[in-house]
């Protein structure tokens, strides 16, 4: 009997020939990620249990990305503690403040390999499934255990497979696809489970799109959100880190809990309305609602492809009066490429404020929060109550093109309509 991609990852990590969904295994950790919200606490706890090193400093990555540049003296003090611990533990893969968001930096710098088992103190660690890796979020005590021993227990998840066919229409993106899946199947459809994204449609998706989809797999409860590693993965890895990869994916006779066929050609741009990620409709259903803020960024959609898509909509135009457009590149190298290619100039000319690479306002930490009664449309991944400041603010989630079109019009807008108007 064949194995799903999740089963293959956990079989290899636990040194077994085969594993089956439902089994418990102890897996060897290939990579552990900590970011600035939890890193100092985890390292303190490690000291508290009497462990003065980590299982493998070369397999531990620490990123300061959530509170950057430090918005308070407390945040700056946390960063100081992290730097002390990182130096003491000899961790070399340390991305200090200003380099970008963890889920952008790890793929970008070649840390993620197909088939690897990656744990992070962040729910969006599922992002690494885009490269065929088993990435999943864990809590701080589990991370202490993982850092001390290099191992952690896992339940082998059942897998739901999504098979995509056809081509997306212009102005429809993979952000729209994952929003559509969340809306159609629900926010706990993949609870404890793995999602696999396959079919011709998925093989045509570029790496940026795959990262978006795997990132949001957790919004459906998933433990992993997996694409097979293929030529697209190989080319991306050669560009980022210099070492390509062999194909890696599920067996043809793997056993799935469910298989869903999705036709890409039928999809319109989608939008998640307040205050659940699965409250999704075609963007037309929300069109015309006035917005105060548009946010282009986050680990979901802060890459060069996303900035470029927004710049294409905004080229030679200006955002509506009274609207704030915040652009937060996902990493410094994204920012540099956006500068070198003129994308950033286009966005600034259109009226954007550009913030330092990092999480920015995505989780309501700082840098572009909202007041009561305000409405924001953003490219990020969560629209929960209070996620971006006031509990009385509303958050809508959409693709970069939809966010740019909305900033331009001052109201939620379908990017296809904006282009039609201009033609």
């Amino acid at each position: 009997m064949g194995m799903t991609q999740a089963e293959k990852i956990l079989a290899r990590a636990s040194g077994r020939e085969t594993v089956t969904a439902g089994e418990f295994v102890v897996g060897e950790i290939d990579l552990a990620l900590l970011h600035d919200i939890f890193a100092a606490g985890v390292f303190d706890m490690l000291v508290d249990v009497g462990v003065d090193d980590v299982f493998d400093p070369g397999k531990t990555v620490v990123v300061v990305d959530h509170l950057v540049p430090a918005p308070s003296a407390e945040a700056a003090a946390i960063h100081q503690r992290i730097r002390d611990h990182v130096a003491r533990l000899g961790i070399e893969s340390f991305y200090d403040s200003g380099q970008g968001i963890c889920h952008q930096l790890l793929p970008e710098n070649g840390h993620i390999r197909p088939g690897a088992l990656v744990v992070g103190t962040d729910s969006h660690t599922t992002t690494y499934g885009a490269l065929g890796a088993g990435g999943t979020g864990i809590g701080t005590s589990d991370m202490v255990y993982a850092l001390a021993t290099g191992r952690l227990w896992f339940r082998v998840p059942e897998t739901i497979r999504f098979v995509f066919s056809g081509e997306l229409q212009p102005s429809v993106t993979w952000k729209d696809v994952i929003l559509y899946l969340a809306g159609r199947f629900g926010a706990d459809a993949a609870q404890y489970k793995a999602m696999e994204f396959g079919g011709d449609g998925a093989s045509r998706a570029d790496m940026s799109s795959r990262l978006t989809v795997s990132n949001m797999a957790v919004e459906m409860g998933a433990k992993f959100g997996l694409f097979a590693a293929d030529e697209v993965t190989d080319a991306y890895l050669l560009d980022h880190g210099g070492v390509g990869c062999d194909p890696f994916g599920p067996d043809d006779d793997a056993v799935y809990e469910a298989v869903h066929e999705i036709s890409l050609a039928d999809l319109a741009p989608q939008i998640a309305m307040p205050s659940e990620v699965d409250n999704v409709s075609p963007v037309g259903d929300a069109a015309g609602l006035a917005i105060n803020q548009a946010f282009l960024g986050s680990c979901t959609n802060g890459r060069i492809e996303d900035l470029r898509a927004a710049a294409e909509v905004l080229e030679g135009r200006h955002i509506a009066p009274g609207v704030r457009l915040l652009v937060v590149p996902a990493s410094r190298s994204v920012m540099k490429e956006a500068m070198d290619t003129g994308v950033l100039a286009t966005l600034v000319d259109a009226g954007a404020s550009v913030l330092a690479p990092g999480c920015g306002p995505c989780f309501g930490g700082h840098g572009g929060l909202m007041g009561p009664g305000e409405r924001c449309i953003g490219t990020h991944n969560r629209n929960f109550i209070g996620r971006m400041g006031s509990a009385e603010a509303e958050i809508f989630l959409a693709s970069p093109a939809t966010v740019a079109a909305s900033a331009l019009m001052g109201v939620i807008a379908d990017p296809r309509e904006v282009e039609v108007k201009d033609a």
Partner: protein
Amino acid sequence: MPDETMVGRVWKFDNDISTDVLSPGQYAVAPLEVRKLHVLESVNPSFAQECQPGDIVISGTNFGCGSSRETAPENLKAVGVACVVAESLARIFMRNAVAVGLPVIVCVGVHDAFEDGHEIEVDLATGRVRNVTTGVELQGDSLPEEMRGILAAGGILEVLRAQGGRGT
């Protein structure tokens, strides 16, 4: 393993109780003694004060959804909750509950079968759930031995301490 049956008074909650409700953001970095007093506050303001050691939380689906913050199960444990029995649990919450030593099990039908103040009996090893007040019996998912071992130790850090910080 120690006795894995427990009997307690029921506190009942509905679907989608998030980590924001279990560990409100504004107290996220407050010390446990302060932080625990705000657990479930937005849905039941008297819960944290009135919860007694050994009480059991019953809930609808997707309990613990949201972020990876471990303070959510930690707060419940700190006010005395002995176990959470839910229609379904969010994955990271379930991991974190086991990691901090708070027993949790999934039992379909539990939300309809109980009201606040009922007495409940739960057997972690078999997954059997009984409403002592009404006599109704339900079959939940038993908790795998791996998780029960961590719970019996008092959480994953206790397992680590017992292994001398490294393990085998």
